[in-house]
């Protein structure tokens, strides 16, 4: 099987698994215990966090370990809004965020927060003008994803950060689940106060994520218990998971965009350009690892099935929404022609892929189109 669904999840790296097992064998003690084994586990936990923080250029900041991207995003939205509600009740996000942001925001709307959702153009990009217009003195939180998980649009985070810092007191969170490991993610360079990263998207383990915060920014807890993680996230901290995540982040972190992904992506986009019934949804300057395509009058699901039979795994839009019959909120938002709306598929590259596999994909794509021409 050729696996092209790396934006849904990736295969764990072998060395990450080895670290996970080694840490489980030797450092299984509870890092909150006062005995010597607890202390060792805590030291290892702290080293792991330090490594994560240093990878994103946020050495003096804080890392809150969570159960994954969804929890990190929930904590950012619900926890930060609660902690800073004395400053105001206005929150800004975008229409194409991951559901873990959007649904948390909808929850906040129920409790009296005023949430505004920035529109995006057909490329999936927000407008700086709209953000400028919406920022006001009651704005306490802005959350804008770095790279969209369905079509790969890269948002101008740095530009947003400058604007937000200049015109408001708002905290700026960015969901970097899809960008980390494919683009450089430096909190310093991006100018953000908080970011979300998920381990399993970068050859780490599932159920493991982190919310990285600049020094001095402290969300209120959204779960309750023994007050671990500085009182922000209760529950026994899994040191082996922290170790595995720190390692996965170290291995996958990049200083520049992934050039091999970019090359494969260009090959694919070029191939699609010759096919009339295929439209490329991902913007040209989008993330290098995501190519979103739409077939005219063919269901995305049909394409997924055909490719699967030919030994290639792809998905319709995002894994989270692919079981839904309706077109995803992102596809709706970018205003795709009705004939294409239900024919969206997503191809996403990862570390296990090769150029040959991309060529193979293109061959299968051509065969699929021939079949369609014949009327299946």
């Amino acid at each position: 099987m050729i696996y092209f669904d790396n934006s849904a999840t990736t295969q764990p790296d072998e060395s990450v698994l080895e670290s996970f097992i080694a840490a489980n064998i030797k450092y299984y003690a509870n890092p909150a215990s006062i005995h010597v084994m607890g202390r060792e586990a805590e030291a290892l936990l702290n080293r792991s966090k330090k490594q994560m923080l240093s990878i994103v250029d946020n050495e003096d900041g804080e890392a809150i370990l969570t159960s994954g991207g969804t929890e990190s995003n929930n904590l950012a939205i619900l926890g930060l809004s609660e902690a800073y509600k004395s400053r105001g009740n206005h929150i800004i996000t975008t229409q194409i965020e991951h559901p873990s942001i959007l649904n948390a925001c909808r929850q906040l709307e129920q409790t009296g927060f005023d949430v505004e959702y920035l529109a995006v153009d057909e490329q999936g990009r927000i407008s700086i003008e709209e953000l400028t217009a919406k920022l006001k003195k009651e704005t306490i939180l802005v959350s804008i994803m770095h790279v969209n998980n369905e079509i790969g649009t890269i948002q101008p985070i740095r530009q947003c950060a400058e604007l937000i810092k200049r015109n408001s007191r708002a905290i700026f969170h960015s969901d970097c689940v899809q960008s980390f490991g494919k683009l450089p993610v430096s909190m310093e360079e991006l100018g953000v106060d908080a970011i979300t990263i998920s381990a399993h998207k970068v050859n780490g383990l599932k159920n493991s994520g982190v919310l990285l915060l600049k020094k001095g920014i402290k969300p209120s807890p959204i779960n309750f218990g023994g007050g671990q993680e500085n009182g922000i996230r209760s529950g026994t901290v899994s040191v082996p998971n922290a170790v595995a995540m720190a390692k996965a982040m170290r291995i996958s972190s990049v200083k520049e965009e992934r050039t091999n992904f970019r090359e494969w992506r260009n090959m694919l986009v070029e191939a699609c350009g010759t096919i009339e019934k295929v439209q490329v949804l991902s913007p040209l300057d989008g993330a290098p690892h995501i190519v979103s395509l739409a077939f005219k009058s063919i269901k995305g699901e049909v394409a997924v099935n055909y490719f699967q039979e030919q030994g290639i795994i792809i998905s319709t839009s995002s894994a989270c929404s692919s079981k839904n019959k309706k077109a995803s909120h992102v596809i709706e938002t970018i205003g795709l022609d009705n004939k294409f709306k239900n024919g969206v598929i997503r191809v996403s590259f990862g570390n296990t892929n090769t150029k040959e596999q991309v060529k193979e994909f293109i061959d299968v794509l051509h065969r699929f189109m021939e079949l369609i021409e014949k009327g299946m």
Partner: protein
Amino acid sequence: MEWNEILIRYGELSLKGRNRNVFVRKLKNNIKDAMRDLQSVRLKAERDRMFLVADDEEDMKKAIERLPHIFGIQSFSPVAKCEADLDAIKKKAIDVIGSGETTGRTFKVEIKRADKTFPYVTGELQQEIGGHVLSQFPELVVQMKKPDILLLVDIRKDGAFLTSKVFKGAGGMPVGSNGHSLLMLSGGIDSPVAGYLLMKRGVSIDAIHFASPPYTSELAKRKVTDLTEQLSSFGASVRLHIIPFTELQQAIVKQVPDNLSMTTTRRMMLQIADKVREEIGALAIITGESLGQVASQTLDSLTAINEVTATPILRPLIAMDKLEIIDISQKIGTYDISIRPYEDCCTIFTPSNPKTKPKIEKVQHFESFFDFPPLIDEAVRNRTTIEAFEQRQADADFSDLL
């Protein structure tokens, strides 16, 4: 941005008249010490500034990370070097300004033309370079007084040196320039702060800690070695003396009534500390006492305890509130270590109601029934001494896992 050297400005010591050379030499040694593992780092000390040069880019980065913690430095600036040629300088100026934030900032160019053979005069240079920078960064606003970004161009025989960033140093005086003292380090929040404050005033320190196994654990000791290591990061390395205190403490409990045992304990500790101080050639003893914080820190208690020695006792926290102390301990990174929950020898034998106004005569009376000096001497003799660098090596290495 690649930097070639770092310009280091001295703190208060620039004011210190004839002693200046001593201060500069101390500072140079302390910086050298802190950069010991960075092979390519070299230092050039001048009368009112010092230059740190490193050929290796990684070394330079690490040096920039370490300098803010070294006392005696007022501020420092990374410097980029280029040929003393107008076009090269202009190009470098863009790199230097571009390495920082420019939006909404004010800006000014300052020229130092030590090389008088350079074919342009200062005014011309200012306009040429300033104009070029503004053409690339139109968002900058020129401001002569207190600009956010001050681009300094220093033209010397061996090249032009450009800098625009000023990093704040730790201030204070180089550790060791004001003598040597012994810090009584319990493991709590206060004593490391007391040590830090005196290090900031240029005092180098040894630390002394009292351990009462099995009442106190190996982990309590570990906490103190961690604190010592943290203190070592502020300049000269700190040596730690650990005193076996169990026997003495048991003797005290037996001989002295409950409500005075705490006073006697402190008196014994101070006598031991004083003997260690004498052996290591330190001049004073530093404590983290803060007036009225606990029973042993009332004026009456301090008087009763202090009676055993004429050595100066430095108590930098005496007039500070607990919250102020906590604030400093968080800033210097000792707080998280100090709050680890292990019993130390002071908390284990705490009587339920110690006297806040102990009478010296009474204390002396009870102490007179037992021959304490031999136990004191034995404790001093049997101490273990740990050098800071030994502690660092003892840290577990997790790098194979990460």
